[in-house]
Each structure stands twice: as C-alpha cells, then as structure tokens.
C-alpha cells in the first residue's frame, strides 16, 4: 500500500459518502452543500490524475457557478425547503434496484476488460498538458468545431434560461 493509494482511497470514500448524502438527505440545501463536497472530491481526483487545469476549472465552474445556482434555485422555490413529506417517490425501490444493477454491470464490465491492469506511463519530458489542451481546442486539425459548438450551446442556454425564467409582470 503506497501513499498515493491511501490518498486515493480516502478521497474516493469521502466523495462517495458525500454523494450518498446528496441523494438521501431530506434538507435540499444540505443536499446542495453535500454536492459541493462531492464536486470538490472529484476535483481532488483530477489533481491526483495530474489534470491540474481541469481540477481548477472544476472548482471554478462547478462549485463557483453550478452549485451556487443550485442553492439559489432551492431558495427561490422556498416552499419545499421545509421538507414535509417523503423525499423519495413511490418507485424508489425500483430505482435503487436499477442503480445497483447498473453498478454491478459496470463493475463486471471493468472486471472482464483486459486493459484494466494498465499502469500510467510517465509524462514525456517537455510535455505541458495545459498548452496541449489549449492547442487542441483551437487547432483546426483537432477540436475547434466541438469547441465552437459548445460556445454556441452556452449562448443558446443563456438566452433560453433568461427567456424561460423571466418574470413578465
């Protein structure tokens, strides 16, 4: 058991516990804060995987924007913050079964796949993941089209969200 394995296990266990709290806790504000804990755990996993840019973007975009948006939404639909009644619907047993089946199926797939024992190779010298990512996103040979489509999607979402949620009074 090396030190990076111990770090991974601690972070992964914490993240999964926080994720479980997201889907089971009754108080929605608490669920949103547990979501933030989960997202932070995932950011740490990214950092462990040497994807530092993605780790920071995860904190900026997910925690700084998406999670705060969730908190705002919970507060704006305030009637349900008191949490009367059950938080799970009638078919939650079915949902749990399906989720468990999905986990077992995925685990079996991972188990049966031959590439799983692969170990990470060291970074080539002089390789900078951040500049490689930046070049890939704007290079016509690589991913400039998906990148532009994503920006169009964001603009469309911005306009759509304002139009849908605008209060015409």
């Amino acid at each position, binding site marked *: 058991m090396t030190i990076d394995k111990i770090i991974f296990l601690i972070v992964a266990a914490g993240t999964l516990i926080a994720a479980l709290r997201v889907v089971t806790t009754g108080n929605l*504000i608490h669920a949103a804060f547990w979501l933030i804990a989960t997202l932070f755990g995932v950011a740490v996993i990214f950092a462990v995987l040497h994807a530092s*840019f993605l780790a*920071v973007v995860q904190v900026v975009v997910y925690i700084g*924007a998406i999670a705060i948006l969730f908190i*705002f939404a919970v507060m704006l639909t305030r009637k349900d913050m008191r949490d009367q009644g059950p938080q799970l619907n009638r078919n939650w047993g079915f949902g749990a079964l399906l989720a468990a089946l999905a986990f077992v199926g995925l685990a079996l797939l991972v188990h049966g796949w031959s590439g799983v024992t692969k170990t990470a190779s060291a970074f080539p010298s002089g390789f900078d993941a*951040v500049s490689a990512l930046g070049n890939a996103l704007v290079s016509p040979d690589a991913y400039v089209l998906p990148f532009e489509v994503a920006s169009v999607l964001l603009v469309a979402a911005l306009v759509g969200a304002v139009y849908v949620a605008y209060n015409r009074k």
Partner: protein
Amino acid sequence: MDFLKDPLKVTADWLLGIFAGWGMPELWANVLIGFLGIFILVALLMALDIILVWIERKVVSRFQSRIGPNRVGPFGLIQPFADIIKLLIKEDTTPEGADKTLYNLAPILSMMSVLILWAVVPLAPSILGVDLNIGALYIIAAGAIGALSIIMAGWSSNNKYSLIGAFREVAVMLSFEIPMLTVMLIPTIFTGSMGIGAITQAQDTWFVFLAPLAAVIFLIAAIAELGRAPFDMGEAESELISGYNIEYSGMKFGMFYAGELLRAFTFGGFWAILFFGGYRFFGLEQVSAFLAVAILFFKAFIGYWIIMWVKYTLLRIRIDHMLAFNWKFLTPVAFVLLMTTALMNALLANAPAWLYIGGMFLSNILVAWISLEVARSTSRRERERVEGAKASMPEVAQH
C-alpha cells in the same frame, strides 16, 4: 550570502540535516518541513492581519479628519490586540433556528479562501509556494470558495437580512468574476503562461504600461470581489444592518473581518504582481530575497491603500446599477480589450520593443476612449428620455 539569496532552501537543508540526525526517513522529514513552512507563512499572515486592522483604522480616520485609535500604546498600536482580546472573550451567540454546522463552517471557509491564495504568491525569486501553471485560474477558484462561505453564512443565520445580503454579494461576486478573469488573460497573453511566477519574471516592462486599461478593470473587479464600498452590497450597513455577518459575534465575526482585510491586502498584492512587476524593482530583487519580499509588500500596501481610498471616498452604488454596470459596460469592454490585445500581440510579434509597448499602450487608450464615448452617448440619450418624460408630465396633468 547564500542565506540572503535563498533563505528558504538554506533553512530547509539545515532542518533536513537536523531531522536526518534524528534518524527520520527523508520523505517524512520533507513532509514535516513543508508543513512547517505552511505554518510559518500562515502565522506571519495572521500577524500581518493584526497590523492591517490598525492600518485600516488609522487610514480611515485620516480620510474622515479624525485621529483614530490613539489611547492604547504609542499611536494606538496596541489597539488591535485589545480588539482581539475583546472579540475572544465576547459571548459567542448562535441564533435560534440556525443551521449549526454550516453556521460554524462559514467563517472558517471565509478565512481559508484567503489563506490558500498565498500558495501561489511569488514573494521573491526563490520564495514561491507552488508554481502552478494555472495560477490565474487558481485565484478565481479561491474566490469561488469565498462566495460559497458568504452564501453559507447568509443562509445558516436564519435571518432575512443575512440572506438578502448574501444573495446580493454572491450575485456581485459571480458577475465580476467574468471581467476579472478576462483581464487576467491579458498578462497571460504577454507572458505565454498562466503561472504567477512566470508572469512576474516576464515583466521587464511593467504590464501596466502595456495594458493600463486592464489594470484599471482588474482593480474595479477586485474591489467588487472584495465586497468593499462602493460595492459593499453584502454588508450595506444602512440597508441591511450588516448583511451576511449580522448574526455573528465574537471571534466568528472576527474571522470574517480579518478575512476581509487580508483579502483586500492580497488583492492589492495581486494587482502589484500582475501589473506592477511584483517583487521586481530595477534589479534590486536579485540582491536579497528579503529585499524582494519588502518590495512586493511595499507595492501591495500601495494597492491596498488605493482600495481603502476608494472605499472611504465613494458612496454605495445601487445593486441593479452595479450589475448593469458590470454586464453592460465592464464585461464588454474587457472582452473587446482582450481581443484587441490578442490581435495587437499577433501583429506586433516581430516589432521592436518600443513599437510593441507604444502600440499596446495606444490601443488600450483607444479602447478606453471609445468605450467611454459610447457609454456617455448612451447615458445622455437615456437621461433625455427619462427627463423628457418627466417634463411632459405636468402638461398632461393640466389638460
């Protein structure tokens, strides 16, 4: 001589020798030295924070034609310690119906979001916590955690003024992050790296001469991020009594207050690092690491003083005006400036230094002038529309 050049490495080697003498494995010794370094940095920052309380109070009193703290110790220098003792022995209240865990977590997160910023601050050529190659983004990420602590405090206090204050403050912070991040990309264009250490190293000419408008936008966005007047929507004493920290007392309030002061100082420091050369001052930083730290702190204090000057001179702006100012003026200007800078950088890539600097400076001035003209004509039209409607009203009433 070596110690003056690179005190951190000399001390670390010395400590490593001592720990090795005790029979400690090298890995553990290195981890321990790392922790000691963090501990010393945080302790020094907290000590600085205490002095900042005194400086802030003295400066505000000079702005308001008062003397300020002058009873305890010479020039009131012992006053902040008396303040801290008072905060520590004050009754620590928790409002009824508060969400206890989040209520207690919020001040800690607030302080933490400031302290983690110092991990990427290059204090001297040889003194730098982590040379992250994404330093500029890291600053924004730490700001996101600050916003989180504010909404946590606002919600868990179970007080409507807290909640309104937190809502406003977070809305402001999220909005002003956009122009801030955009203008942070401008030093990145000049340097070719997002690392704060590399940005400092690259400033043979201070970036303020290359991008004066970017420096101004960064300062405005930083003041809004700090939640200081004229953008102090989160606290707004006269409207919201004290905003998100209304229910906090004792040292928990002290944490928010100390965090705010240290954050203001830190952003003064980032202003200096991104646009005024950080620890660089005509080669003086090469003489000794301590001199470099002193230069950086001197520049950071000038930035902090400007932030205080703005805070105690200007009036609070209304929340809708503030957000409109950001979305309709500051963000577009920042985007246009970023595009102009990128274009000029590509055009002048092979130009001599004087042409490069002059072109950048002039393009900045041009963007600033055009945007101010557009804003002026728009606001004049708006004013005429509103005043025209007002002027025609009595006429309608007469008939």
